[in-house]
Structures are given as C-alpha cells and as structure tokens.
C-alpha cells in the first residue's frame, strides 16, 4: 500500500556533533530512544507522514553529520530544504555558541525562506545544564526562530518539534508566502494533490461518508 500525502517537505537536521540529531530522528520515527547510536557519517535519511492542519505531510528528513570537516559536502545537502531543525545540546555551551554559524549556512545555502526551529536537546539532563531556557529563547527571538527544548531520550517534545516546523511551512503555503511550485522550495505535491486555496477541498475530501 503506498502512503498518501498532500505535501512532501525536505527537512534538515543540523547542529554540532554529539547534540543528538540522529537520536531525535530515531525517536521521531520509531518512538524509541536509540542506545549505542553511532555518529553520523555524511547523511542519513528518515521519513514519516504526519498530520498537520488537516493535511497529510510527508517529511523527508536529512540527518546530517555534525563535524565541521564534513561541511564541504554537507553544504550540498542544504539545497532545496523547506525546513530545518537546528539542534544544540543544553548541557554543552560550545554547541550553543556554534548556532550562529549553522544558521548562516542554512539561510545562505538552503532556500532563503527556510523555516528553522531551534531545538535544545537533552533537556532530561537538568543537572548538567549549561544553557538556560531563557538565553536560548532570546537567541531564537533575535533570529526569528521557533524554539523548543526536547529530550530524545524521554521523547519529550520530539514529535512536537517536527510537527511545529511542518505546521509553520503549511501556514506559509496557505498564506501564499511560500510557493511550492518555485524551484528549490523543498516542497512537492503528494498524490492527494491539494490546491493552494485548499481548505474547502480538504474538508470535502476528508469526510466522504458524510456526503
């Protein structure tokens, strides 16, 4: 059975090495914490269909390697991404300090309209925290990012992070701010083929039994 969806979004997960990017992806897709997770070399992929504002959205997620050395290649992954989770580790200040660089890369190399959600991961390790919620919120506000703290270990806020980012993209499509037809938008139509002004179409399609 092939899966049905209205949109497909290309998503990136970026951030310094060891911040838990792969574990976030694994938790999102498998709803489990991955023990003995290996560090990512190059890029790994995952995908999942999530319901967002009455639409089925397939997220094609590119989980990238965090180490600086891979940037000559990871930069090519950015092209045509619609959304990104920018991840730091709340227990490691250096991963927070590196955010500005990551963000600059995302904005210059992906679509300029890329929707970025800041993720402070490992929130379960409260006693080792080095970056406060307040400080990160301020950074998010200054850079016009959405922000959540997550724990890939407990699963807290993980689905929310992906959904929230996807929802922001859907909203932008519906308001006309994002044009899925533009090349490099990182958005494709799925087999359910919504139109841009699709609120009524979606209602009609989703409840055929009530007709």
């Amino acid at each position, binding site marked *: 059975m092939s899966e049905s969806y209205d949109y497909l979004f290309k998503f990136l997960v970026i951030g310094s090495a*060891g911040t838990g990017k792969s574990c976030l992806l694994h938790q999102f897709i498998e709803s489990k914490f991955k023990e003995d997770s*290996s*560090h990512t*070399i*190059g890029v790994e992929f995952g995908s999942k269909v999530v319901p967002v504002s009455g639409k089925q959205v397939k997220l094609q997620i590119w989980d990238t390697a965090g*180490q600086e*050395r891979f940037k000559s*290649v990871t*930069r090519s992954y950015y092209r045509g991404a619609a959304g990104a989770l920018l991840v730091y580790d709340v227990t490691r200040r250096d991963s927070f300090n590196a955010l500005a660089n990551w963000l600059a890369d995302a904005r210059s190399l992906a679509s300029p309209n890329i929707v970025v959600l800041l993720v402070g991961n490992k929130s379960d390790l409260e006693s080792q925290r080095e970056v406060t919620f307040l400080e990160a919120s301020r950074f998010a506000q200054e850079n016009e990012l959405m922000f959540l703290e997550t724990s890939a270990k407990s699963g807290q806020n993980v689905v929310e992070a992906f959904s929230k980012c996807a929802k922001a993209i859907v909203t932008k499509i519906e308001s006309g701010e994002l044009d899925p037809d533009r090349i490099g938008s990182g958005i494709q139509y799925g087999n359910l083929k919504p139109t841009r002004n699709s609120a009524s179409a979606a209602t009609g399609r989703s409840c055929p039994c009530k007709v």
Partner: protein
Amino acid sequence: MAGLFDYSKEAVRVKAKKCDGDAEPEWRKFSVDPQITTYEVLRSILAKAFELRRDFSVSYRVIDDLGQETFLPLLSDWDLDAAFLGACDPCLNLLIDVTGAEEAWEPEEPPVSVIKSLKPLLRLGKPKAAQLQGLFKSQMERTLGMVQRALKPEEAPDYDPEPPEEAPVDDVCFRSFLDPLGTLEEPRAMRAAVFASGVEPSLRKVVWKHLLNVYPEGLKGKERIEYMRQRQQQYNALKDEWMKQAETPELMAITTMVRKDVLRTDRHLVFYAGNDDNKNVAALFNVLTTYAVNHPSVSYCQGMSDLASPLLVTMQDEPTAYVCFCALMRRLHNNFSFDGAAMGLKFQHLSIALRHYDPDFYLYLQQQQAGDLLFCYRWLLLELKREFAFEDALRMLEVLWASLEPDWPPPDGLQLQEAALRPSTAPSRHTAYTRLCALRRQRGLPSNKSLDELGQRAQLTTGRRPFLSLDDSDLAAVVECTSPRKVVRNLKEFQALAPTVVEPKNAKDEIFVWENPLPPSPAQQAVEDGPWWGDQVRHAFCWEG
C-alpha cells in the same frame, strides 16, 4: 610446527607461568615437539595444564640485543615458530595472563553470538569454526548477490555469485609465500589468495600487517619482529608525550572530539561493551588522539574511529593497532581533507560507473533528485565498513585491501608522525603543541582562520560557490570521454586487468573502476587536479571547536 624451519631440537622444554590477578602465580613444565606443535595445540595444552576455563593471552620471553628481557605476544603459528627459534636456553619461557579477559567463555554458547565478539572465534574448535564460516559466507554471498543484481540487472541475469573456491588463507597457505627466512617472497600472490578467499580469522594479526603495508619490502621474519618492537616503543613515547603535556586548548579540542566518538563506535561488540571506562575504548581513544596530535594537518575527523576500531579488535594490542592505523591512513588521509577534493573525485567515479553500468537506475536517481549520490558518502569514506555486520566487514576489508597493489613504506620504515613533527638532527625541546604552532607559522595560516572564511573570500573574488558541486553538468563532459570499463568480478579478471590498470591520480584506493589507459580530457584533468580553490585550502587546517 612442521614448516619451513629445520629445528635442531626434537623437543623444546617449556616453562609456563600463569598470572591471574592477585592470585599466586602458578608454574608448569612440559616438553613439546616443535615439528608437530601448532599454536592451537599449544593453547589447548596450556588450557589443560592450568585447567583454564577463561580466555588467556600467551607471551614468550626473548632476550634482545641489549640483553634486556622482554615478553612478546604469542598469537599465531608464526609467532610460535619465532618463539621456538629464539627460545632462551635452556627452555622456552611462556607467560600466561588470564587477567585481561573479563568475560568467561562458555563452550556451550551457540555460534549466533559471533557478531558480538571476535574472541570466541579464536577459541572455537573446528566444527564450530566451519559452521561460522558457512554462516557469514552465506551472508556475504547473499549481500554480494544483491549488489550484483542491483548493479547489473541486464548484462548478467543468470550470474551466480561464485562461492569462494578455496578456504581462507591459513597458516600453511601463508607460509607458502615466505622464503626460509620468513621474507615475503610473493606479495602479489599472497594478495591474490586473500582476494580470492580472505584470511583465516586467527591469522589476521599476521596477514593484515602485510596487506596494510606496515613493513618495508623484503624484511626477514626476525627483522619484522624487531621492526614492530621499535615502532611499538615509538608509539608509547609519542603517547606519553601528549599525556604528560599540559591540557592546551588544541589538545582538549582533539580529546573532546575523539572521546565523543569512541564512546559510540562499535559498542555493540563485547570488546567495547560495558561501561565507558572499558579498557579497549580507552585504547581506541589513545590511538586516535596520538594520531591526531602527531598529524596536525589531518588531526581527527569523524570516521577515523570506524577505521581504527577493526584494527584494534584484530590486533588486540594498542601500539600495534596504532602502527596499522598509520599505515592505513597513509592511503586514506586525503579523504579527510577539509577541501573534500578526494571525496569529490570518488563521487565522480561512482557516478560515471553507475551511469555506464545502469543508465536506467542512474536516470531514476536523477529524477528523484538523488543523482548526486550523496547517500553513498559513508560507503566511500569508511570503505563500506559500516554497511556490513562487523565480522563480515573484517572479511570485506581484507579482500578490498588485497585488491590493491603493494605500496611498501620507504626502507627506513613507516612514519608514525608527520614529517614536520619528526625530530631534526638537533635535539629539540619542543612539545607536540609548540611544534604545532611552529608548523602553523610556517604555513602562514592564523590558527583561527576557518575554512569557511577562506572559502567565502574566494567566493567573493570569483563568484563561485565554495563547496563541491556534484551536479550532473560537471560530470557530463567527463562521462563523454570515458573508455569502456570492466568490473572486476573474480581473481582471473583481476589478474588479467592488472597490467593495464591506471591508477587515478589522488585516488590510489579506487576500487570501482579499472580504467584502460587513455589520455585525460581537459575536463577530466580539471577534475583530477581538484577543485579550483584547492590550492588555497589544501594546506589549511584548523581545529574544530
């Protein structure tokens, strides 16, 4: 054991001492016939003599040229021969150490746990070993079959992956490539045999050093032992140096990166399992940190821990693993360079090969926006190590290494640190860090200058993107000028092709395509010369923070 050596004695007296933690050492004496005693036999004699039910390591005593007493690890028939030959009169002194082995070996354990640890392999009796071989041979065949089907659906619909005709290279087979003094006389024949059927796991410690080009050409057996001993000592000195030095920001940057990765490298293996203070995890950390400190232009990069881990698991000895790692990195260090040029070239070759062998699949990937093949990055960087179960990966790696021409280090031996760091004639009091600073000054590169900045500056002046484009447009010209190619499917084809092989510049390790000699087109030359900004950043290095 019966081999190439003419032993003068019919029997060798053996005096064995067993050390087990804090327990009182125990002694046993017996005699063995060197003509018929193999490594396996000796181990079973020792196990019986001391009633050992746990794993143990054996080393033998030698007196070196300076009259110093040392114990060398006894790990194979080859070592045993050396032990018999060099046995200090009046008897061969063995040291049995059971302290190093935490996990008890349960003989009844089914062989399914083979992936968990290498150690059981060394101890299994013949029937089980055969079972195991069958297990991963069939796994390998299945994987190979799948790859074949994926790559060649049209040309070879009825192609049956040939099962290896011969058993893996074992001790007897390996000896046939040595002369009476233990010199490797036929390195290419040895590689061909390994290429055909791999190496018996217990012999990997010996054969891998040859495959990895650890030894200079033409060393005799005894010279190899001395050569390794010197390098092991050199490693210990290099390691002590950074361990003693104050924690500089540079050293901390390295250790932080390395620690992060060794804690998540192959931890599912019993060898690395358990707490983070596992001594083998610490050994892997030491190997990688020593390499990074002593190779500042390469430093540490993710992926290296995956390359070093099988070496440590196989060699079971930290200094030896370091020496092997240096030998491996001599071939692979370019893959980790900041400019990504060597990896870019690999992608080019892969793309060309795919387009040639399977245009339909190539087109499909293009349509799916996957034509850049970036999903293969890990395959190429780690030489497929992570794409197989660990035990299978060991076989795959040795076969891959065997497919390459020998590339001996120079006669003065394999270097364990970068040329610029080697002590000059005048003794210097520099530490690794001060040498590093000096090296940076030499290269005129401020330490805080990142690759990004260099790239951005270059971009401003030329208007081109500072990252490798793997787009099809760049490849098209290259593809057009390529000559017919052939995939090496078996040893005969390998041998038939070998004389015409032209190794791509910068990519001695290319394994996908053997090219027929052809003058490169301008486009191809450009590709092989690396990207346009290559010269600017080729010597750049900075520490990741």
